């Protein structure tokens, strides 16, 4: 094979690989992603990743259960949550949380150990939480 054809072949192979990999990347990311939903968006009958802020003053412990309310990040609508399992350290009034579960009779029943609290970035001021 003459050098110029060899170069062209190499280029085609490299480009095809790149396109294939990019497609795989895009496909897997859209199929594996979970939709995060705000309290105002959830309906009974299917499971969600609920995201929002913990309503200040709403956290109650009762035995093994933890009860709190989560409200839209930039709204007022909120939903009560019951949760069991390990509570992450940064969990606090006003913090942003993600928790998976299902809406049952007006209460969001969370899966065990599914609570994730966004770590307050070390550089953002705490005023965000208010």
């Amino acid at each position, binding site marked *: 094979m003459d050098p110029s054809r060899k170069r062209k072949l190499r280029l085609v192979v490299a480009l095809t690989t790149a396109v294939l990999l990019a497609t795989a990347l895009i496909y897997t*990311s859209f199929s594996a*992603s979970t939709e*995060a939903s705000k309290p105002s968006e959830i309906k009974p009958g299917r499971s969600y990743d609920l995201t929002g802020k913990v309503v200040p003053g709403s956290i109650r412990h009762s035995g093994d259960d933890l009860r709190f309310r989560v409200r839209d990040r930039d709204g007022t609508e909120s939903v009560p949550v019951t949760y069991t399992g390990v*509570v992450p350290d940064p969990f606090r009034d006003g913090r942003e949380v993600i928790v998976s579960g299902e809406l049952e009779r007006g209460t969001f029943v969370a899966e065990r150990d599914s609570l994730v609290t966004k770590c307050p970035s070390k550089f*953002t001021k705490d005023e965000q939480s208010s």
Partner: protein
Amino acid sequence: MAGVGSACLAIALLTALYSAGASIFGARTGRREWVTSGRRAIYCVAALCVAAFGLLEAAFLRSDFSYALVAEGSSTDTPTFYKVTALWATQDGSLLLWATLLSLFASAVLFLTRRSLRDIAPYATAVLGCIAAFFLLLMVGWENPFDTLAAPPAEGAGLNPLLRHPAMMIHPPMLYTGYVGFSIPFAFAIGALVAGRTGADWIRATRRFALIAWTFLGTGIMLGALWSYTELGWGGYWAWDPVENASLMPWLVGTAFLHSIMVQEKRGMLKIWNVSLICATFTLALLGTFLVRSGILSSIHAFGASTIGVQFLIFIGLVIALSAGLIISRLPLLRSEAKLDSLLSREAFFLLNNLVLVGLCLVIMWGTFFPLISEAITGTEASVGPPWFNRLVTPLALVLVLLTGIGPVLAWRRFTPAALRRVLWPPVSAAALALVLLLAFTNAADSPASLAMFCLVAFVLTVVSMELARGTKARRTMTGESWPRALGRLTGRNRRRYGGYLVHAGIAVLFLGVAGSSAFLDQRDVRLKPGDSFGVNGYQVTYREATAKLGGDSAGTGAPISFGAVLDVRKDGEHFVMRPSRNYYASGDPSLGTISRFFEGEATSEVDVRWGLKRDLWLAVQPDIGSLEKPIQEADAKFANSPGDVQALIIAALAERYRSDPPPAAFRAIASPLVAWIWLGGAIVVLGALVAAWPSPEARLRRVRSLYSARLGRDLSRA
């Protein structure tokens, strides 16, 4: 003194701008005195930044709450060590740290190059001046760290307790040093492009800075992982969090850069690729700072969380546009001096490793920004979790570790398949042996990816030790030195090469830990009363008693209250005691009761880890303070206005009540195999990088001398 600090920053901003202007003017007109003046301006910026930094640090140390920053990030009861470091836990303070580190690094490199690189250095000065000016402008215009409060509070808010961890306080400066360090090769690359001197001069002058930056960034990432493991209370070291990813991306591209510049130095190839890589690294470093700063990813709509997000985006956009434009306009100068001889050559494999590293970076970038992408395309915010990252990153990581092993044995230009077979059979048989042993004696087959990784680790370690043994043996036959002496001399004379091999070995060891701990950990979450037991991975863990400690925990974080547990652990006749605890920090919220505010503030897990080379036993406790709720509320009502010492007595009584009659507490126990090798591998990487970066004047002098005598010979024979 706040006024003096502000003035320092304002003058520093003007000086940085002057430095850019004067250097460019001097370079364009050929008037060296302007270049000298521009260089001195950078020294002045450094002096002014250091002065400002010192003033702010002093304010933190004396807890001067008339500074808004001190009031918000420190308090009188914050331990002194954390007072010092609270400066860079704040946004404004971290900008000041960036600017200070940048000006110091810039001064160092400009001082070293003051008598050389005449064409490139003035433009590099200008670039560094502009970067410094950007950060100073952010402080002067929007986020002045010297803002004062008209009515200073009596007590500050204190440093976020989660950050009261030694690793966390060293972690930001390490990351920043890394980010800042990469601006040096970036500036010289731009300078080389502007001046049209696209040889390897700029690389030789700044290679070491790139290596140092890489080391610091890597150390920063490791410390972040260590912090996550020992402080965050969930037991893992890596969660593919946007902020973690943001620091990993420039590190990956920086790694690619460190490899591909060797190809340009040796063969004069990959010039476009190298300048593109360093521009990308620097852009990613800015992006890293921006992501941490803006909160754009954890909450997309909260752009207002940081007041400087837009400015950052504009600056990043400018950097990308200008460097891309410059590279394109200089394309004719960037032509390769040589062609790739063969696909079986070291440079071809370097190219492959570059592609894998950059691919890894792109994958992580895609996943990190996926919430933004999906919102733009589908209108709903969706995110990809760690499983997605793991699935895509694992194969790339395997290829990368394989290349880590193959790279060192290859020759430049070309080699024959037969030669390759000859050098590769011992490491390949080592990998095969590892496979057989693992299949025979362990359950490693449960996780094919980990099994493959273990074999690759054996492969890499064999390659590195063979290389060392071969070199030492050759030196011994030549000089007749003893083994250790020959090994030491060999490394000392070829620091860059053997330091690099050490880094490769460290990476392999690190992945040994990752493969072991990610696939084979055993985790139990239990609720226990004193006297109860549970088992995890053969450990028999018994909750012996509750503890309650007041006024300062053992780790020195200044926590007023600390509830914990004492547990007896038994395994195979071995017996030891572990003491995890949870710290409670008082809340500053005035709406809470006088007593309950002590329990309603921040709380952090103080994990207890039994470190071991084979496996770690990791224990965290979450005491149920719900049972104290009632007495706390009663105390709130009864002692609302009582003086501080009475409050202290009440709290002591409450703590004693918890200790003597503890409610069931939640425990998380993780038996995590081989985790220690991650930190060990990280340490080996740093050691190797230090060996490679350490100046060896002796070897350099010898090399330079031989170059000159060759040139002398040429000159003499010419006439």
